[in-house]
């Protein structure tokens, strides 16, 4: 059943029809909240509040927009408000979020360690982006929202959304380029040694 039909059933008083909508969009809402709040507990609470807000304001939902964009918009606004209430530093947030940092003596194979190191670098690079750019990257690449949906979520015109996403990718690339250059040089060095020996 499509979202609009479920919304109509909810508006007709069938409360249970809201549950499939929660199931369908809980990861989206939680993902947005987590990326803004950086705490699993706070993100879970925020996700609940977002759905309750959506339920309370369901009568104001405009069927011309997608429910996905509407709920994402509520999630973004609610999470930004919550984040302003509990301002915290990004580094503390990553620690709390238990980024998979692996100690050197963890006994894991070297390939896995390198892959985790790469993941951590990438996460830190994403985290270091200014919020407005990070949000674009998260909505487009992680939550798979279309440009049109991002416009509905953020309220910006398409040109601004495209421009911000372009800049966000560029910044991300700049922040990671150094790491990949280093990795590339190490790789070349290792290959040269191997062939030399």
């Amino acid at each position, binding site marked *: 059943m499509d979202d609009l039909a479920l919304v109509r059933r909810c508006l007709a008083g069938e409360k249970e029809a809201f549950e499939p909508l929660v199931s369908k969009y809980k990861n989206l809402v939680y993902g947005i909240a987590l990326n803004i709040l950086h705490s699993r507990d706070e993100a879970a609470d925020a996700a609940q509040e977002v759905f309750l807000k959506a339920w309370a304001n369901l009568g104001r939902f405009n069927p011309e927009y997608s429910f996905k964009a509407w709920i994402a918009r509520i999630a973004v606004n609610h999470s930004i408000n919550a984040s302003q209430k509990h301002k915290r530093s990004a580094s503390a947030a990553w620690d709390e979020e238990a980024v998979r940092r692996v100690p050197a003596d963890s006994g894991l194979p070297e390939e896995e360690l390198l892959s985790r190191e790469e993941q951590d670098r990438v996460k830190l690079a994403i985290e270091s982006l200014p919020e407005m750019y990070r949000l674009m990257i998260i909505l487009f*690449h992680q939550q798979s929202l279309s440009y049109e949906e991002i416009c509905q979520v953020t309220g910006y015109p398409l040109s601004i959304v495209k421009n911000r996403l372009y800049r966000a990718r560029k910044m991300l690339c700049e922040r990671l380029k150094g790491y990949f250059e280093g990795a590339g040089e190490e790789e070349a060095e290792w290959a040269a040694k191997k062939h030399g020996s």
Partner: protein
Amino acid sequence: MGCEKAWELMMNRLDGEIGKRDLMMLENHLRVCPGCRRQKDALDAALRELEGSRPAAPASIERKVMDRICGPRRRETAPLLPYAVLPAALLTGMLAILMHGLFASSPVIVIEKAVRVLDLCHKVLSALAAVLRFIINTPFIGEIMAVAGLALVAGIIAFIFAGSGKKGDSGVYWRAVK
């Protein structure tokens, strides 16, 4: 093709808006330009990580949200179900003994056992009848019958309400709460 144009094509590729010809031009450029190749690798790694690390919401969100909207969910388990377990177990045990007797010995022995069980039931009923005779002969027989009648009516009402209490407003059953 210059590096700026290559970057533009890389962006188009990420948006899924790149033609075959442009894709080929980009690939050719990446083959000969280590700087752009590193940029592409960095971007690909970042986006791969993002796509692969989509956070999963806790499973309890639906329940918590729906509890706040509809009130706490009722359990699907019938309230009287635990009381039915013991009689069902006794009946199953008796049936098992009878079936075992039927298969393990001759039908004559089974009939003898059944006669013995019936005889036992007869004795139990006789004892019950004696108790009832004693009660009926008491001067409080009217009060006892009234209390028994009220208890029977209360039991029937409780049973009916317990049965209808399982359903929600719309008659749709919630999933069992673990």
